[in-house]
């Protein structure tokens, strides 16, 4: 109808990372229900109801493309939120850009997703920013002279971050300071060989830019192999499930991320509590980032001033609106966008405390 704002979600509800898709979807539902309960969004004096369409990209590149086109052509959405992984976000971003539809990926960290694509934005900070924060923190807190990295070879997020960490650490501590740089394959469950190598290299810290489920296994196995030192991780650790899976083994370690759930204040805390109440578990960063991504789109609409009902014109207005954003207050921090469509926002380092909560340690802003 005329008085709705349609936004499409291109998310992995099935396939390799269904949990990520689920959280994105829940964040979307929560936001939509909230806004619609208040009567909708006020744009140029007119109330619009939100209508979200969730499509499954099966965590596959080709499906992500098909989904984008379906949302753009069939559903005539004004903007697309997603996809989450770069593997899908890169081709889907191309589609959105070609078809002049604003797209914002909550989670993708690969620079190519937004590069030279005026219509594509993202809500997460990119890896070249996050990596050095981890390096600095490791050097400062653990007096690390030597570091080891274990990353997922076929996961471009993990690989990217691992390489950035390696380069930065070597830059700061001299070539060869990363004493072990190991990888593992898709859906691996045993890391003992890599960890044996790492432990034998005697690093001061092990950097694990990996998904939370793998982190739990790696940490446990490292302990089995006699490792007693610290670990550091990145935003992919930030999932409520980390602690149920990892238990005591993960306590006392640090990771960089977008927000700290424990000790969160204000809107962030509100979001977490609401989500927990509705869906029974603490939201991960992807939920928070999706929430922010939607808000970025809504802010773009506000900036546009009014909606004409002509989809093409409205899409253009929204795109211009997003790039003109001065600053949005997000639950993962305040952000504005650079000319590539990447956010400029702060990162936090989180400590997993003895209660198993994600506790704020420090904040780093660009």
């Amino acid at each position, binding site marked *: 109808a005329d008085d709705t704002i349609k936004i499409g979600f291109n998310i992995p509800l099935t396939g390799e990372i269904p949990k990520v898709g689920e959280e994105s979807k829940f964040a979307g539902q929560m936001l939509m229900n909230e806004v619609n309960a208040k009567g909708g969004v006020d744009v140029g004096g007119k109330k619009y109801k939100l209508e979200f369409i969730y499509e499954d990209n099966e965590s596959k590149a080709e499906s992500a493309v098909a989904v984008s086109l379906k949302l753009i*052509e069939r559903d005539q959405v004004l903007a697309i939120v997603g996809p989450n992984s770069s593997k899908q976000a890169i081709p889907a971003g*191309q589609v959105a850009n070609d078809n002049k539809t604003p797209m914002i990926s909550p989670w993708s960290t*690969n620079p190519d997703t937004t590069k030279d694509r005026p219509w594509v934005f993202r809500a997460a900070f990119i890896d070249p920013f996050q990596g050095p924060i981890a390096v600095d923190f490791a050097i400062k807190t653990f007096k690390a002279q030597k570091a080891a990295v274990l990353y997922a070879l*076929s*996961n*471009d997020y993990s690989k990217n971050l691992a390489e950035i960490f390696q380069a930065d650490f070597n830059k700061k501590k001299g070539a060869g300071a990363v004493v072990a740089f190991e990888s593992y*394959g898709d859906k691996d469950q045993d890391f003992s060989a890599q960890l044996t190598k790492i432990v034998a290299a005697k690093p001061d810290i092990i950097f694990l830019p990996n998904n939370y489920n793998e982190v739990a296994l790696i940490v446990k196995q490292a302990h089995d192999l006699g490792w007693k030192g610290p670990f550091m991780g990145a935003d992919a650790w930030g999932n409520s499930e980390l602690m149920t899976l990892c238990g005591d083994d993960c306590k006392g370690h640090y990771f960089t991320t977008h927000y700290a759930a424990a000790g969160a204040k204000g809107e962030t805390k509100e979001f977490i509590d609401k989500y927990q109440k509705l869906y029974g578990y603490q939201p991960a960063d992807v939920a928070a980032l999706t929430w922010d991504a939607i808000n970025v789109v809504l802010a773009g609409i506000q900036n546009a001033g009014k909606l004409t009902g002509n989809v093409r014109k409205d899409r253009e207005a929204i795109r211009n609106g997003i790039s003109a954003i001065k600053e949005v207050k997000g639950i993962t921090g305040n952000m504005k966008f650079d000319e590539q469509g990447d956010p400029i926002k702060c990162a936090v380092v989180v400590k997993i405390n003895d209660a198993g909560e994600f506790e704020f340690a420090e904040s780093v802003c660009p």
Partner: protein
Amino acid sequence: MKKYSVPALLTTFALCTVVAAYFEIIDLYVQTIIMFIGVNIILSSSFNIINGYMGEFACGHAGFMAVGAYVTSILNVMFFTSSKTFGDPIFSPELALWFFPVTMIIGGVAAAITGLLVAIPSFKTRDDYLAIITLAANFIIVSLFINMDSLGGARGFMGMKQIVFAMEDVAFLPWMLIWTFVFTYFVVFLIRRFVSSTYGKGIIAIHQDEIAAEIMSVNTNKMKLVAFMFSSGLAGIAGGLFAHILGYINPNSFNILKSTECLVMVYLGGMGSLSGSIIAAILFTLLIEMLRFIIPAADTLIHLIPLVPDTFHLSQVLKWVIIPLILVILMQFRPEGIMGNRELSDFFPKLKKYYEFK
């Protein structure tokens, strides 16, 4: 009449689709689905050469697809676009249109050569050992691309969209749609010629009794070589198309899961039935897309019944329960696939008036 009716029909269909796409009568979504159907037809019918006609159980088709996809993409990106990997274009971008078929064929040839990787071990091994060799080859190829950092590694490789734009600059037409039609027809045409010749039937003889084939003068090693290279070469062509339709490729798109889809299409259609492969590819692709619409519709429908609680929803996850379930049930009724090893004309003898399978 008999000779031209089917080509005429197919050409008309392709032309209508292209014209409709040009005038935006069918939208990009539908076009993409049509293109995916084309790619899947190439995949399943080429896979059928090995798994159907020759009766071997290979399961690494996606690996060869990857080779074709990468080779074609690299060549095109290197020749016709400026990229950070390869620098400035070597040739003028307008030439992309004319050289596209050439690079596609080169991709196919590269894939065919990779096919040697499985063809040569296949001389000595049969059925399930071959399954492993192909499976391992699939793992190896994917792993190789993941390790090639210069090609993006796990981050994938892109820039193929520029090629499509370059073609559109020459003439604004839905080029990928056109190429998909051209190559799909071409591939089916080649396969049909192959399996209906006495030469090609040698692989069917190998299927039914390899020893008898060898002793009755069929050079089984050569036939296997030809069959594997032919099949993997065509998979390479499918890969090239796939890469340019998507504009982006990633090694993980060609893992075992993709090979599994190829397997499903072949056996769904029927071993050794070309029309079966085509029908199965169409059905399979459509089924996946249809469920996008059916599941939400069914969800709305069941919520009309007051008994279903509001919190219960049919989720998209069910898609990958429903699709295999449909196949399992189908197998129970047609344990030889949709077409068995027969062709359309065997089911509808009247069709023979209009075309013959030769």
